[in-house]
């Protein structure tokens, strides 16, 4: 099994951190091989931002993502840039507060209004962790607890708390949405 995951957004949205937590969750907690990479803007700041995580139960050769199995878009710009670099049967998770999807989309689209949730229920900076929650729900072979552990390890006490709550919110939102989807499909 090899899964190619790509996250795109703007610098400052926590794209890279999300990918790192994901890599830790898979790599340390689930004992998979992982390769996490990113592309920065001009030196330290601003502009578009992209991170990739490859997860595999065997050796990972190419460490970057050509066509993604799972694509997460934090903002519209990121979505536009990579929407066509996703596999036909791929999964797309968008921050629906900021992203409008194309009708002729490749993959299965999951919507999570992370900015809205963050700004209403938590703090603006939790957007990425909310997205990570939703993502955890969607991803194969990744336990809820594994990502939580990675978050705990990644933040200091006080920050961990709010982030874990935000994570749960995202996770549950997708859980709910996902079931809704299923129901919709059934009806």
């Amino acid at each position, binding site marked *: 099994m090899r899964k190619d995951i790509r996250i795109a957004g703007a610098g400052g949205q926590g794209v890279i951190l999300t990918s790192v937590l994901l890599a830790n969750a898979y790599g340390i907690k689930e004992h998979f091989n992982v390769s996490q990479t990113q592309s920065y803007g001009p030196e*330290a*700041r601003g*502009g578009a931002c992209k991170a990739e995580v490859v997860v595999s139960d065997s050796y990972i050769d190419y460490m970057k993502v050509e066509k993604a199995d799972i694509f997460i878009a934090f903002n519209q710009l990121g979505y536009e840039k990579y929407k066509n670099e996703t596999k036909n049967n791929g999964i797309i998770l968008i921050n629906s507060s900021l992203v409008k999807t194309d009708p002729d989309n490749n993959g299965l689209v999951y919507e999570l209004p992370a900015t809205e949730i963050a700004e209403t229920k938590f703090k603006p900076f939790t957007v990425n962790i909310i997205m990570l929650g939703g993502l955890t729900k969607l991803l194969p072979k990744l336990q809820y607890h594994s990502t939580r552990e990675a978050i705990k390890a990644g933040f200091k006490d006080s920050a961990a708390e709010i982030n874990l709550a935000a994570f749960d919110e995202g996770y549950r939102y997708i859980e709910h949405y996902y079931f809704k989807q299923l129901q919709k499909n059934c009806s």
Partner: protein
Amino acid sequence: MNSLLEKYIKKESLPYIFCPGCGNGIVLNAMIYAIEALGIKDDTACVSGIGCSSWIPPYLNMDVMHTIHGRAIAFAEGLKLSQPDKNIIVFTGDGDCLAIGGNHLLHAAKRNINITVIMINNYIYGMTGGQKSPTTPIDAKTKTSPYGAIDNPIDGCGVAMSAGATFCSRWTTGHPNQLKKAIQEGIAHNGFSFIEVLSQCPVQAGKSIFKERDPWKIIQYIRKNSTITSVWEDEYKEDKIRLGNFKKETDKREYCEKIITLKKRMKQE
């Protein structure tokens, strides 16, 4: 958009790469106001090294060299010597100017060559993400001083003056009008001018030095921590940072001028 900037800034390159609230934009404004006041846009070139602060000139609708880390002053000296009638302004950071570039500052000041150096001191290496710089306060925990900085910071104005700079000022981004004036005077001064600007880096210095991310609060903190004086005393003991126009020495001859005199003398002989 600020209407004066329409004239001076390459709009197609905007927005600046600076983080929100970064002081570099304020220094850029002050410099533009100064150039405009002097009416010397077409006779002025800007040179910078590498660092966030060195990203100020590339936005200008002027002749600009964005060079390599620490060497802006050396490039500027060559440019000045080749066009002694033009004004050359150097933008540099505390790392660019005082770490890797310290020797060029020393020697340009010693020569008293007529260039204007504007050093933006944000107490940190901003561009590379928050490492200790030569001006980082003692005990500050930066990315390369996780247990607190142990070395004594350098005072750029002190070094420049003791090396021979004949014009020297220090202001903060909270003193934009004084800064503009100082730049204006520095450019007009026929000799080596050194102008230090204490500036906010809300992202990197904000994290490691000020424990404060709000640019305005940092500006206020720096202002409060400083005092305006008119004379520079070497044995200064107060714990506030001195601001002001410290030095303007007009009796030392300028370097290019000396060469030109020499060449005239040669022709007469």
